[in-house]
């Protein structure tokens, strides 16, 4: 047993070493991506990945409970929360990695570098010789061990965290809750207001006229084939995810007319009065 400890003091199993090097790389890459990804969503996903890796490390370090909690709470709950917020907030100019504060980036990188070096150096010449695994600690179960500590030694802290969580929840509600000051307006009033302001009396035009794909990201076409912005959501437009099909639609239209003209030996309509018809329709 002591033999084992002695040995354990200086190294761990090769499997763990292998796992460490592989997953460690992944974790670092994930972290870097979290920082440097342009889109918040991607950052979130990379972070999730890193967290999962960390969860694995917890498990290998004998912190079974924490490993699970890491996966369930962090990756499961917190990251989802992040994603929700990303959806709420949507995409903003903040996404560009272009620095606006003068010298901020260089200072940041410098500090980061120095900090990291110092930290590593610190760990380097810290005397971390003794290494006795969690053999006895986890003797009768990691969870039980934790529980024993939490409810005896750290019970006050534990209670306090309870209070903290409640406060946080309430705080979040208070922060995000918006008091409705005036009566909600009925549909009728809304309609009247629209009429008064004279904008878009009928409902917005549906997207996806001549649709070929799932139509949400394709602007509906006006009779002359030009796309109408009203038909697609603002978010998509900002993301630049609108696919414009007006050109090919107009080509199809031409082809159709030509065919029908060949069949009926009819002179084609002048585009002029076609335009006029368009005016009328607007």
């Amino acid at each position: 047993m002591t033999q084992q400890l002695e040995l354990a003091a200086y190294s761990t199993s090769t499997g763990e070493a292998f796992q460490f090097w592989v997953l460690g790389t992944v974790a670092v890459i994930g972290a870097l991506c979290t920082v440097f990804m342009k889109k918040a969503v991607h950052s979130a996903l990379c972070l999730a990945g890193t967290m999962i890796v960390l969860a694995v490390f917890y498990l290998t370090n004998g912190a079974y409970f924490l490993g699970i909690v890491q996966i369930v709470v962090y990756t499961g709950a917190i990251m989802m929360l992040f994603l929700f917020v990303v959806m709420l907030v949507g995409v903003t100019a903040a996404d560009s990695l272009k620095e606006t504060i003068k010298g901020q980036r260089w200072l940041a990188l410098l500090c980061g570098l120095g900090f990291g070096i110092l930290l590593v150096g610190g760990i380097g010449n810290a005397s971390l010789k003794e290494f006795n695994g969690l053999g006895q600690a986890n003797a009768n179960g990691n969870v039980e061990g934790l529980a024993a500590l939490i409810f005896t030694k750290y019970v006050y802290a534990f209670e306090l965290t309870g209070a903290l969580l409640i406060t946080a929840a309430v705080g979040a509600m208070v922060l995000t809750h918006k008091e409705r000051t005036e009566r909600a307006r009925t549909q009728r009033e809304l309609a009247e207001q629209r009429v008064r302001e004279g904008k878009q009396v009928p409902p917005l035009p549906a997207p996806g006229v001549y649709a070929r794909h799932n139509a949400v990201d394709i602007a509906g076409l006006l009779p002359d084939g030009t796309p109408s912005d009203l038909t697609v959501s603002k978010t998509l437009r900002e993301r630049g995810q609108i696919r414009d099909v007006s050109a090919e639609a107009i080509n199809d239209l031409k082809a159709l007319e030509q065919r029908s003209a060949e069949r009926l030996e009819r002179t084609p309509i002048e585009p002029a009065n076609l335009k006029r018809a368009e005016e009328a329709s607007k």
Partner: protein
Amino acid sequence: MNPVNYLYLAALLFTIGATGVLIRRNAIVVFMCVELMLNACNLAFVAFSRMHGNLDGQIIAFFTMVVAAAEVVVGLAIIVSLFRTRHSASVDDASLMKL
């Protein structure tokens, strides 16, 4: 392999997270970086607890998680309300804190 490597990894992650906090403007991403830092710390705690052979480190890590959860909740709420008022999630837009 010497388990001290876990500490090096933790240090690395922490530094990356910190740098991220400094260079990103999107409040959400900043938050993610903070989470990253917290996790790095947790990793260090867990590694320490293994080295010292007692569970206190894990306990601390556990508390860290709880606090992190609370912090995220409040923080995100703040972000949302910030977005409501300023129509942007950029931390630089909230720059009234000066003389």
